[in-house]
């Protein structure tokens, strides 16, 4: 008798963990995966102003890829993503290494580097829009200092506008990357550095050849976090360039929004969202795979 009761108690105890994560997990299932499926369905439908559940096959995708605006947006995402991730990491790593050289007021400097993380893209965009505005901002100021030929007109140049986005986004995120790497540098085994300097490596060589290569997991985390920021970038574009000049600096998120809400093309909007998700998956699935394979022996 006691053993039957015991069995039930043990069973119940085993059930608790599943019960605990059930609400959150179900919410994610519905709010993420349910919605993705919904969006996928809509992307094959003839939805225009409101969702319409009549299927029309691949037509929305055909239209999507015929749109010049989409091609520009998608190319921009690749340029923006690569430049943003690369530059943020370079600056972040550089600053982390410099801050790791026993800097006296490290705390204050770190805060200065980190504060942009606290600020919304709306404000970031507005501030940079002014600074980069040729007739208001930096260009005028530098010219008033006497450097007449100085020109900094990215934001009004349709080939450079996307780099203006990169600049503002890097400004916002490189401090975070710095923090990530700084904390990783702090946990590097001191003996390795000693060993390397006995081996005759200079400080620069120690970082380049030994410390940085050994921080691959941190690079991975940084890339994933930055990639997610890049793909979600929407507000920044709205506030900084609003996609212009023309639509030369739109990103897919803006495209999707424009189609869905402004142009009554929900079907095409959904199709663009699905393409975005597929892009995300192309980056994330390998990462998750390695992450989970690693966690089996944790």
């Amino acid at each position, binding site marked *: 008798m006691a053993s039957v009761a015991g069995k039930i108690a043990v069973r119940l105890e085993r059930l608790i963990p599943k019960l605990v994560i059930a609400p959150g997990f179900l919410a994610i299932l519905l709010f993420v995966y349910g919605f993705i499926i919904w969006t996928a369905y809509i992307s094959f439908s003839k939805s225009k102003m409101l969702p319409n559940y009549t299927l029309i096959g691949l037509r929305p995708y055909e239209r999507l890829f015929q749109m010049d605006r989409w091609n520009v947006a998608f190319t921009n995402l690749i340029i923006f993503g690569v430049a943003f991730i690369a530059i943020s990491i370079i600056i972040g790593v550089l600053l982390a290494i410099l801050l790791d050289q026993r800097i006296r007021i490290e705390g204050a400097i770190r805060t200065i580097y980190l504060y942009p993380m606290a600020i919304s893209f709306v404000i970031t965009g507005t501030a940079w829009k002014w600074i980069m505005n040729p007739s208001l901002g930096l260009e005028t100021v530098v010219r008033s200092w006497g450097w007449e030929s100085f020109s900094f007109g990215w934001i009004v140049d349709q080939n450079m506008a996307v780099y203006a986005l990169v600049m503002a986004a890097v400004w916002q995120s490189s401090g975070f990357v710095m923090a990530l790497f700084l904390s990783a540098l702090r946990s590097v*085994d001191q*003996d390795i550095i*000693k060993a*390397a300097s*006995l081996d005759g490596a200079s400080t620069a060589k120690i970082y380049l050849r030994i410390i940085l290569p050994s921080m691959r997991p941190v690079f991975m985390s940084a890339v994933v976090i930055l990639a997610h920021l890049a793909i979600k970038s929407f507000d920044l574009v709205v506030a900084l360039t609003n996609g212009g000049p023309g639509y030369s600096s739109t990103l897919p998120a803006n495209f999707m929004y424009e189609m869905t809400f402004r142009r009554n093309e929900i079907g095409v909007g959904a199709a663009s969202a699905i393409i975005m998700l597929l892009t995300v998956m192309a980056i994330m699935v390998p990462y998750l795979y390695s992450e989970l394979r690693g966690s089996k022996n944790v």
Partner: protein
Amino acid sequence: MASLSIRNAVKRFGAVEVIKNVSLDLNDGEFLVLLGASGCGKSTLLNMIAGLENITEGEIRIGDRVVNDVHPKDRDIAMVFQSYALYPNMTVEKNIAFGLEMRGIPKEERNKLVSEVATMLQIDHLLDRKPAQLSGGQRQRVAMGRALVRRPEIFLFDEPLSNLDAKLRLEMRTEIKRLHKELNATIVYVTHDQIEAMTLADRIAILKDGIVQQYATPAEIYNKPTNVFIASLVGSPPMNFLNARLETVDDDVVAHVPLTKDPDGQKLDLSLKGYDSDLSAYIGKEVIIGIRPENISYTEEPVKDGHEVVQGEVDVVEPTGADTLCHIKWGINSVLARINNRIDVAIGDKFNCAIDMKRTNVFDKKTETRI
């Protein structure tokens, strides 16, 4: 190979003096072990020799050269770390070759040197692996390979075996000893394990709080420790200590060891005839008698030559295979004896202990230094 000489070395971190006036001399090809408890400054001293820490005062010479201001890489030393400090992103081969590469040695020669060392250490089949894919002992060997390949003047080892399990530690210890013999290298080796120190060293320097307590050969340290600290540090199981008072009985110096709490109660008399120092100044004073467990043996006869025979009662028995450790009660004193495993003892047994008095140490109770 080169000799090493440390003169009045001092190291301060801010106001804290971590190394206090240390002087050591080591000949070409000798094996020096720095032994001491955690935090006593062993690693700091080693780092000072390596140049990884500045020396605050004093002088360090390698061969004839004062190296105080020489960069670590130019001191011609190699170091093996406790954590091995292998470069995690490089293969074993690259790890070993890195120091050569940094010194601008051409690739073919590097390859030749690396493969020589790898063969010698039997890690030639591992050259393409990364450190994470190696076992503890293999990592250890790679770390040694990294040091060996450069053929430096002096090898420094910072507790290189402390991360290994007991069996591997034994093996690697023998291997280091053999390497030392083969290469005839000058070695400074840091450890807190006294057995390691005893088995490996030509000379041992025992450190405590940044001060060298004794600098001598292993045998001297084992047999004639200069103070109680060293006596209890070296030897496992540790030396037994008994409080006693020296008296003269029949012209002989005798140690009275109380057997009860009452100071006037029953006492044990241990004759110190033939003790190697003059004890006369300590007559009537409190001393500490130190007896190593292996110098207490079982006897059936009541008297044994050169030995004192004391009767006790067995308290705890710990068979270790080859020997048996017996905790024996002598009145209020408890002593540990290491006896042959062929002798059957059980808890509660009466036990006749023969004490080898020639190997007994006497310490001043106040200063705890050997008389």
